[in-house]
């Protein structure tokens, strides 16, 4: 065992599966590193119980509701989610006995529907061509009309970035003394805001906080006007040093690269984030670049992205990949 790589013999001992969330491995990706002095580290959030980083967020959202006494008997938890948050919430709500309803665009991969049903969630579909904007709008409208719904609202709830400020960031800081760049996906903004804020507090301007965001295909930009746009309330752009979009095609190509070159079986957002992490690494002479592998690849299997040439992938632009 090389002296500079530490291995814990066991990932820890926990009271139940919800308590086992977090404490994910940091894995060096030597083959993707452009220079010997630059080390690229993947934080494998796919190692969480339901397979995604959202386990952290979902636990924080539910614990936040519980601590405020916001869930009463007879109420249903309602949340707009294209998959991972819903799946995480479904697992945790199932463990804790809370009914859960998720609002999701109808054009996500079928595995997401299966996973939600498996954990006992009810699903309401929003129009696929409105992407996640449509799911958010529909869920907000449902919550306003019916007071039996309690919406944690990952897009605007400080418990979301809080999960990363207190969890993801702390784990990274425990493993690395120097971090030149932290790269994560920009969706709700929770990972970047929470982890970024903690890293900035500890390391100052020496660490660059870099966002990779999806460039949604034209078929899902179903907006009537720009005022139908949506900016998650928790996002503070001043915390970011770079914000770079990644096309669906590039995200898928890089998801395959992670698998083929590093043996990492990850979802599409992870490929996108990896592409930006390597780009940032190429601009450096030395240092550590940490990026998030948000989820594993199981729920994308039916799409063929791991086995077919990217140009043969169906509905490349019409799918909400991440």
């Amino acid at each position, binding site marked *: 065992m090389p002296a500079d790589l530490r291995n814990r013999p066991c990932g820890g001992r926990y009271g139940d599966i919800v308590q086992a969330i977090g404490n994910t491995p940091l894995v060096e990706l030597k083959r993707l590193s452009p220079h010997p002095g630059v080390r690229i580290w993947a934080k494998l959030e796919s190692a969480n119980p339901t397979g995604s980083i*959202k386990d952290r967020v979902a636990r924080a959202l539910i614990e936040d509701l519980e601590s405020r006494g916001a869930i009463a008997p007879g109420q249903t938890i309602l949340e707009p*989610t*294209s*998959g*991972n*948050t819903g799946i995480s919430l479904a697992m945790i709500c199932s463990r804790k006995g809370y009914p859960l309803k998720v609002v999701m*665009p109808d054009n*996500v991969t079928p595995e997401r529907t299966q996973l939600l049903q498996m954990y006992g969630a009810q699903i309401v579909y929003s129009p696929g061509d409105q*992407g*996640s*904007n449509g*799911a*958010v709008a529909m869920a907000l409208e449902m919550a306003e009309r019916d007071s039996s719904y309690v919406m944690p609202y*990952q*897009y605007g709830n400080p418990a979301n970035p809080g999960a990363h400020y207190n969890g993801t960031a702390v784990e990274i800081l425990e493993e690395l003394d120097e971090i030149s760049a932290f790269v994560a*996906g*920009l*969706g*709700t903004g929770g990972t970047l805001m929470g982890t970024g804020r903690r890293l900035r507090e500890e390391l100052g301007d020496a660490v660059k906080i870099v*966002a990779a*965001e*999806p*460039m*949604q295909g*034209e078929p*899902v*930009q179903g*907006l*009537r*006007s*720009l*005022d*139908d*746009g*949506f*900016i*998650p309330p928790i996002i503070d*752009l001043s915390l*970011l*040093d*770079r*914000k*770079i*979009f*990644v096309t669906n095609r590039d995200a898928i190509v890089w998801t395959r690269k992670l698998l083929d070159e590093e043996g990492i079986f990850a*979802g*599409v*957002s992870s490929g996108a984030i990896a592409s930006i992490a390597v780009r940032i690494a190429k601009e450096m002479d030395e240092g550590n670049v940490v990026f998030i592998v948000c989820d594993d690849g199981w729920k994308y299997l039916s799409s063929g992205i791991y086995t077919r040439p990217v140009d043969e992938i169906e509905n490349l632009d019409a799918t*909400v*990949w*991440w």
Partner: protein
Amino acid sequence: MATIKIPPVLRSSVGGEKEVQASGGTVGDVLRSLSDSHPATESQLFSGDGQLNRYVNVYLNDEDVRVLDGLDTSVGESDTLVILPAMAGGGR
């Protein structure tokens, strides 16, 4: 001249085009050149105080200009500006 990629939601304001050429040394100059040529875009791209509409994201090639120098971000001849609506993003 820089190339501006127009999102579907704005195409009717530029005669249906997916790409438009416009001149200017900064992002602000290029976008104002666009709105001079296509006045219907002005109220969609800019807020009343001349800043970018908060639901509009503008990218210099693939980087959000708000995280660079905003409307003062320099634009070169071979650069592309990509205008995209603010979207919640998928898969969360």
